[in-house]
């Protein structure tokens, strides 16, 4: 009696980025209080107006309740049992790349993040400027000089607070106010680092800008805050990446990202999210509770969010667009993969205010193992949104029969001339597709990765070329252990 052998029992490749950097760390005293907020602000040498804003946000947060509407389950978080500030010890802030702690440079090398500048020649494609954030501080920003020549500001938020206070004061919190939600209020109180980008009028940013977030310290929350402002007729493409060591306890990551696009400006924001997802039994992993919102403030401005979400134990995020300028447009392209015991509740909000505004939503959810994957979306057409259009396409793919996919689209339309289209599908990876690929020489895992990548193609093609290949591999790795 013989059966075609089932594909060799498969050992998933361990999370590649799970190492810890041995480095002396300075942390705030454990716990969260007004004193913690003051400690962080003092560490950063912040002006009084910012401390006042933080304290106000903290007071507000204390009156708020944890949101419970998401389709995610986790035990209550003990906010007193964590650290809110962690920074590698150092004598003085590094002035140049040569001054950066070699242990840190080694870390980024291991992560595959280039912290060296290649000599940039006029017109060279493919260079990426990186801001590297390690726990609560930025350790290096590359290509700053080259960008400054064009008037582009790309630095850590802390630096921007000191060097460009007017811009920060004008825009910080203007898109996501502390009152927006529980985690946004928490972030406004204790945010530690993030990136700041300003593209001046009429400038097309000549390279990809990128921030790489790394959580290293144990038991520490990361609360970064990113602010990108694109002035009239400017363009920027930005990529965010993230990893964390493998640990048994859950760690909280509650970030805020704000984008502002002025007249005819365009911002493309891409995320490849690969926080530690926990092990195959659901132990450990990052809680990724993030508020991301873009304001298309100017007429004919454009903002797009592209995300490939493969990591985190729990993902709770809804990158959104407020389409205020007439004829502005927003897009959300998302791939969310959950395996083992991961939970993702993600989607977007498209708020149409200006006339002739357009939005596109393409969401691809893939669940395997015991994972739960939810799309949650809101399309709102205000009374003023004459002739506005939205097109939403939501596809779910299931691998195995222990996982779940859920779709909660909400449409609110107050303008009779606005049009909203919604399409949703749920499917399984079919045996005949897998067999067809296997017959051509692919192992079961390779076949699965290829088919899933095909399923995600409309989203993957929105990623900057430099990262598309990495993202494709990541999809394969995330699915490991899901078949066999």
């Amino acid at each position, binding site marked *: 009696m013989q059966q075609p052998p089932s594909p060799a029992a498969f050992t998933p490749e361990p999370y590649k980025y799970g190492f810890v950097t041995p480095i002396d760390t300075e942390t705030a005293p454990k716990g969260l209080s007004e004193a913690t907020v003051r400690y962080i602000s003092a560490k950063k040498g912040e002006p009084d107006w910012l401390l006042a804003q933080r304290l106000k946000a903290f007071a507000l947060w204390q009156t708020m309740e944890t949101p419970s509407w998401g389709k995610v389950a986790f035990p209550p978080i003990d906010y007193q049992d964590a650290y809110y500030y962690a920074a590698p010890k150092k004598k003085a802030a590094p002035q140049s790349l040569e001054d950066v702690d070699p242990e840190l440079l080694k870390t980024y090398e291991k992560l595959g993040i280039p912290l060296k500048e290649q000599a940039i020649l006029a017109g060279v494609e493919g260079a990426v400027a990186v801001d590297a954030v390690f726990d609560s501080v930025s350790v290096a920003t590359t290509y700053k000089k080259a960008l400054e020549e064009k008037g582009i500001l790309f630095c850590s938020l802390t630096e921007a607070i000191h060097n460009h206070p007017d811009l920060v004061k004008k825009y910080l919190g203007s898109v996501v106010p502390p009152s927006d939600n529980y985690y946004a209020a928490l972030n406004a109180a204790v945010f530690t680092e993030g990136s700041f980008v300003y593209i001046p009028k009429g400038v097309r940013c000549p390279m990809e800008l990128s921030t790489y977030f790394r959580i290293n310290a144990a038991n520490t929350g990361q609360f970064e805050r990113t602010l990108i402002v694109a002035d009239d007729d400017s363009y920027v493409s930005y990529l965010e990446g993230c990893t964390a060591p493998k640990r048994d306890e859950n760690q909280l990551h509650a970030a805020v990202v704000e984008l502002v696009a002025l007249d005819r400006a365009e911002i493309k924001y891409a995320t490849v999210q690969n926080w530690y997802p926990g092990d195959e039994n659901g132990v450990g992993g990052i809680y990724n509770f993030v508020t991301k919102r873009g304001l298309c403030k100017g007429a004919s401005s454009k903002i797009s969010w592209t995300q490939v979400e493969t990591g985190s134990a729990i993902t709770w995020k809804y990158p959104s667009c407020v389409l205020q300028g007439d004829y502005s447009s927003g897009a959300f392209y998302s791939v969310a993969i959950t395996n083992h015991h991961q939970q993702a509740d993600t989607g977007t909000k498209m708020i149409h205010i200006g006339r002739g505004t357009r939005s596109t939503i393409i969401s691809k959810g893939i669940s395997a193992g015991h994972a739960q994957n939810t799309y949650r979306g809101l399309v709102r057409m205000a009374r003023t949104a004459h002739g506005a259009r939205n097109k939403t396409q939501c596809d779910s793919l299931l691998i195995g029969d222990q996982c779940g996919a859920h779709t909660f689209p909400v449409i609110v339309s107050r303008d009779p001339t606005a049009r909203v289209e919604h399409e949703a599908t749920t499917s399984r990876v079919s045996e005949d597709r897998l067999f067809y690929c296997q*017959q*051509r020489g692919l192992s079961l895992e390779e076949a699965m990765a290829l088919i899933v990548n095909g399923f995600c193609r409309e989203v993957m093609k929105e990623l900057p070329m430099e990262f598309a290949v990495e993202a494709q591999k990541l999809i394969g790795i995330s699915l490991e252990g899901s078949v066999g």
Partner: protein
Amino acid sequence: MLEIKNLSAAIDGKEILKGLSLSLPKGQVHAIMGPNGAGKSTLSYVLAGRAGYTVTGGSVTLNGQDLLAMAPHERAAAGVFLAFQYPVEIPGVTTMNFLKTALNAVRAARGEKALDVMQMLKLLRAKAKAIGMDEDMLKRPVNVGFSGGEKKRCEVLQMAVLEPRLCILDETDSGLDIDALRIVADGVNALRDANRSMLVITHYQRLLDYIKPDRVHVLAGGRIERSGGPELALELEEKGYGQASAGAQA
């Protein structure tokens, strides 16, 4: 060479192959004919290792290697290629990317170096041209929206690219117009060589005018009921399976 001995196989508990034996020497082309539902596709799936097809007895070796002990992709690496009766669509994966991934996977399994982008492009273009396939087809997702004939042509393209040792063609001629039949047959003939064996499943003698078989077998009742030279196909065409079999028994 391919050696099938006393092979029995079942789907969902239903026995389809019942002690089938066949030997296909290196360099030869054998045709398999037989009525609908006789188990021809089942045989091809069992040889390729499709899940759900339970082998209940017998053995299959390819050049001395036990095929039945291998996973489907290992069989592919060992040189088994199946041109599907019903080729499968893979949305979002371009034919180019599919062929590239497949060829490099098979090369890796055979200990050969991966081809780089330029080498691959050159190879695929040349092979597509030889089979009369428009290069633009390579940019379309695998089989999605392809016409019946285009799908079959795409199967032969894949076969030409992967250069297998054992080609199983399951009704590759059905759905082809007369010109396409000739082009596909030419493509198959171009692959004939002393180290490659072919099992050609067909209902029509017409294909065998183009691809001259060394032997013709009739699969019926779950086994090879009758074998003969190319003239057997002509006889079947004329008399049908019922009478031809009756003749054989007489």
